[in-house]
């Protein structure tokens, strides 16, 4: 077994960390406070090649492995959940299904501009009345006169309505077979009549990321906007979410790492009763538990990436990573706030933002409860 990162993976880790500390950290708090999506930072992430990291060069990708991409998400999340969300969603939900299921024409049309960060793409799955039960989706797509006519709405869609959002991969019911819904995925471009994108406000977390409601009202797109095959929608969704779980896990790991580092530094500096609070066993043990959880989370997530990179099944490990990394992010950031005491409740301290940002991770891209269903099925329950 080799637990060392390769020289290249280590350089990617150092490089992304350097970028996050130099360019994201100074503005993260203000962007969060103002709930402002940062176009300059999105552009910079594109310039650095963080979009389409695993794609072939001909589509504008970097041909890196899954682990390198996951390390990049982890390092951004160590500094800021919002930018990590923009990065992870665009790669895993925007770019990935287009690359995996798009035909050559679709790939060449969309992927190069999505890889530079000039444009973003979203994945429209969740609906107001269909969250964990994605088969309860009501959005429909009917093929008529060489056009798909889409009707319905989507909610909580990351990168769905930024000024540079080029479009969305829409999951829709395209028919019924044997009493079961048939799902199909269709590409809807921004600006198509009948397609409305509305930014959602008032979020507790990821406040500097773009979250949207999408409305389709007799939205007509050409027949060739079909992604994959008719009826392949469920498969595309499940495969996309498997990959997406790794990046949400990376966000949990990065959040936990960032919160832990802040707590450790603060505990060593903060003095009460004449000594640093890190010297009190109750705090020292908390910090030891944080370090332990982070180590376990990283080993589990990196193993899942290794399985994917080696062409082995990784669905179970992806679900386990998503579940574990997001849950330890909650535990670690909670204790990190506790160690900061009253200061941890103030926006002057980044740990307050980390505490809020982690809360999505147990809900988005499959709740913790759904992950347990996935794992229990995969172990044969």
């Amino acid at each position, binding site marked *: 077994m080799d637990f060392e990162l390769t020289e290249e993976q280590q350089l*990617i880790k150092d490089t992304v960390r350097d970028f996050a500390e*130099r360019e994201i950290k100074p503005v993260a708090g203000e962007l969060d406070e103002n709930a402002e999506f940062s176009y300059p930072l999105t552009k910079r992430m594109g310039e650095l*090649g963080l979009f389409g990291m695993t794609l072939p060069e001909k589509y504008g990708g970097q041909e890196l492995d899954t682990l390198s991409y996951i390390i990049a998400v982890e390092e951004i999340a160590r500094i800021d959940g919002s930018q990590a969300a923009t990065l992870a969603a665009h790669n895993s939900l925007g770019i990935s299904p287009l690359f995996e299921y798009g035909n050559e024409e679709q790939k060449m049309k969309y992927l190069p501009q999505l890889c530079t960060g000039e444009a973003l793409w979203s994945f429209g799955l969740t609906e107001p009345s269909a969250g964990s039960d994605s088969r309860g989706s009501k959005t429909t797509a009917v093929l008529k006169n060489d056009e798909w006519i889409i009707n319905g709405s989507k909610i909580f869609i990351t990168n769905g309505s930024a000024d540079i959002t080029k479009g969305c991969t829409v999951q829709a019911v395209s028919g019924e077979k044997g009493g079961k819904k048939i799902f199909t995925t269709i590409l809807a471009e921004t600006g198509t009549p009948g397609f409305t994108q509305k930014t959602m406000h008032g979020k507790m977390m990821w406040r500097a990321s773009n979250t949207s409601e999408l409305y389709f009202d007799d939205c007509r797109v050409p027949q060739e906007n079909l992604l994959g095959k008719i009826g392949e929608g469920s498969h595309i969704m499940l495969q996309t979410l498997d990959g997406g779980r790794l990046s949400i896990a990376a966000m949990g790991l990065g959040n936990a790492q960032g919160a832990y580092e802040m707590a450790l530094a603060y505990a060593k500096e903060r003095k009460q009763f004449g000594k640093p609070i890190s010297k009190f066993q109750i705090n020292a043990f908390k910090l030891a538990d944080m370090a332990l959880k982070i180590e376990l989370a990283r080993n589990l997530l990196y193993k899942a990436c290794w399985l994917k990179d080696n062409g082995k099944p990784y669905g179970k490990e992806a679900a386990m990573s998503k579940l574990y990394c997001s849950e330890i992010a909650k535990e670690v950031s909670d204790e990190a706030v506790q160690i900061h005491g009253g200061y941890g409740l103030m926006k002057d301290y980044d740990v307050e933002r980390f505490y809020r940002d982690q809360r999505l991770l147990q809900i988005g891209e499959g709740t913790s409860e759904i992950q347990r269903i996935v794992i229990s099925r995969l172990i044969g329950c």
Partner: protein
Amino acid sequence: MKILVLISNVPDTTTKIRFTGDNTAFDSTGVQWIINPWDELALTRAVELKEAGAVEKITVGNVGRQTTEPTLRKALAIGADEAIRVDAEPEDAFFVAIQLAEVGKDFDIIMAGIEASDYNGSAVGGMLAELLGFNSVSAVSGLNIENGELIINREIDGGSQVLTIASPVVTIVQKGIAKEPRIPAMRGIMMARKKPMNVVSPVEAKAKTEMINFELPPPKAACKLVDEENAKELIRLLHEEAKVL
């Protein structure tokens, strides 16, 4: 024009410094190594000049063992075209300058950081210019090439100085040579693996200095708080203990 940028492999600037062997050697256990910050700025400027079309090739040079290769690989990722590593322990500034003089003959411009952030010797650049018989200019905070002419800015007391200089030249650069060190893009990291890492054997040379031992600065004394009403006590402490009055 061809540029050689000298790259020192130094401990990360946040490293906690420790020594081993009864304070005779630096303890490198667990140390993260980086490009010397001044060298990284020099390389950034070289890449900017290449992007502007004023330079055709950038080489980075280092004297060190194989362990310095990740640092050189990063320099390649930032934008250097090739690396030369002289496979030897960098014993002292003179030894390093002798080795670099062997590989630096064919360059128009050599850029050296004003010092390395580990030993702060500030010696290699000047020695190298002397050994090669190149012109040299120190404390360079700006380098431009216009119509093949080198225009150099130097920060001097109370202002700045602009001068032109004929190549070949060793420029010893300081802060200001580039705004911020360049962060390599993923594409650069990918390309770096394919760029040449030339390893050359050292020439015979003898160090002129010998390291006897190291000493850490004494630990900071605890801060003494004096009551705001008690100015006399403050004056006594400044006089008798701090001895600054």
